């Protein structure tokens, strides 16, 4: 078993065996490969980078090259038990519309993202007066793919506005789980939603 990023490990652990999963922005297929091997999941992916798609296809994974912002429209309603969006929401043109699509194609949806309200990020902005470069947001403002920074509090609000129910939630600082004061203490958040 490979060592998964903590948010992916939480997602992989929570997914029921033998289900249908669509991983949006699946990268080189790490989560999909893990789910297929460990949980006999019918795993599908969408990825924008052709080199990553190529690596997925070479592993026998079913991955379609496409832009998550537009490609999701090709998928039927509730065709998957789970739609997964890991560390991609903040790169979407319209995260709110993306969330709608996730909850349309999946009966349940996992969303993970770096929390912009983490104390380290707040401190960098407050005391440094500059856009934070931290271990969860490691790239300078001008070259980051993140175009919509989001906090745990913002995401809860968006979920509420979208009529989505939060089934489960996980918070991490580095590799370690965080309990309590998540908007301040979590570097990463994972939510499981349904509608």
């Amino acid at each position, binding site marked *: 078993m490979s060592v998964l990023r903590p948010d992916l490990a939480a997602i992989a652990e929570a997914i029921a065996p033998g289900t249908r999963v669509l991983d949006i922005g699946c990268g080189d297929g790490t989560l999909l490969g893990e789910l297929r091997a460990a949980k006999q999941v019918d795993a599908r992916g969408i990825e924008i980078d052709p080199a990553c798609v190529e690596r997925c*296809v*070479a*592993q026998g994974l*079913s991955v379609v090259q496409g832009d998550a912002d537009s490609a999701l429209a090709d*998928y039927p309603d509730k065709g998957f038990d789970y739609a997964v969006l890991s560390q991609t929401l903040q790169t979407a043109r319209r995260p709110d519309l993306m969330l709608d699509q996730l909850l349309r194609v999946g009966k349940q949806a996992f969303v993970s993202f770096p929390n912009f309200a983490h104390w380290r990020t707040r401190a960098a902005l407050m005391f440094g007066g500059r856009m934070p470069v931290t271990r969860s947001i490691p790239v300078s403002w001008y070259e980051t793919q993140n175009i919509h920074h989001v906090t745990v509090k913002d995401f809860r609000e968006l979920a509420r506005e979208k009529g989505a129910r939060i089934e489960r939630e996980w918070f991490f600082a580095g590799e370690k789980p965080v309990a309590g004061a998540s908007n301040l203490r979590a570097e990463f958040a994972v939510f499981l939603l349904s509608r």
Partner: protein
Amino acid sequence: MSGASQVLQLTDPLPLDGGSELAQAEIAYETYGTLADDRSNAILICHALTGDQYVASTHPVTGKPGWWERVVGPGKPIDTDRYFVVCANVIGSCMGSSGPASFAADGKPYAMRFPVITIRDMVRALVALLDALGIERLHAVVGGSMGGMQALSLAANWPERATRVLVIASTSRHSAQNIAFHELGRQAVMADPNWCGGDYYAADAQPDSGLAVARMAAHITYLSEEALTEKFGRNLQDRETKSFGFDADFQVESYLRYQGSGFTRRFDANSYLYITRAMDYFDLAEEHGGKLADAFAGTTARFCLVSFDSDWLYPTSESRHVVHALNAAGAAVSFVELSAPHGHDSFLLDVPALDRVVKGFLE
């Protein structure tokens, strides 16, 4: 023009989409590798418009290597040490399978009496060949361009026959632009005074000029503007200045003339008419009530589609259209648009990323 291929003679008449049937149809084919005892390792490769069964062996007419020798062979992406590869000449063609140059019951060539065929008819003949070889279920069916149409047609109409379906630089239907280019080619053939309504087989002269023009026009659609510019630009051919005449002043003109004349030596003009017609008629959605997703309903095969960013004959949007339908049908599908400079012809040329995708998908 038939080569040294094995030829299967069908005992039953082959029913055709046009309503007629083809009696005593012959299918010429090549095989590579060894069929496993449980017959589970067969890969059917479908050739493109002017291709043939010599996918990985020397062409008997031109003496050139097989058209996909780079991909098919021992240790290659389609590894003949592991897989049993079958490639057959499509019906309507001229390398040993029944086509307009074949003899009809009266002992004369069919010529234009040959029935108009479709892509599905070609695949029906291929399925008959698989039956004869005792191959119930293919490990994979693979095809580029018109070969991709055959692979899709097999997946849609004989869904139990292939476990994997690999479609490269292809489409589920011909666009008006595709049909327009083919019509240009057909009119060039039929305008040749040597065409004689298709009855030229016993004549001294063949409609070579018309067929060469058809090939020149088609060849332009196979390349990208970038590839043509890089290869030839506006360079002059074997001269310092323009001739102020209609010789092949430019290198690109000389190249196209060479492509055209080489083609007439290995291809039958009437076959060109019949096969382009089959491609123009191809519309997989129409065959299935107008909805492409319905063509793949309930399929258990895994699909992989590949397009090239410089292909304007069957652009990426055509592949995406198929991928969309496969997604809607819940099929397991992969899709990748590869970057290559050569246009539509990229599927025949050295694109290492294509090799990796082909190899990985077949595993």
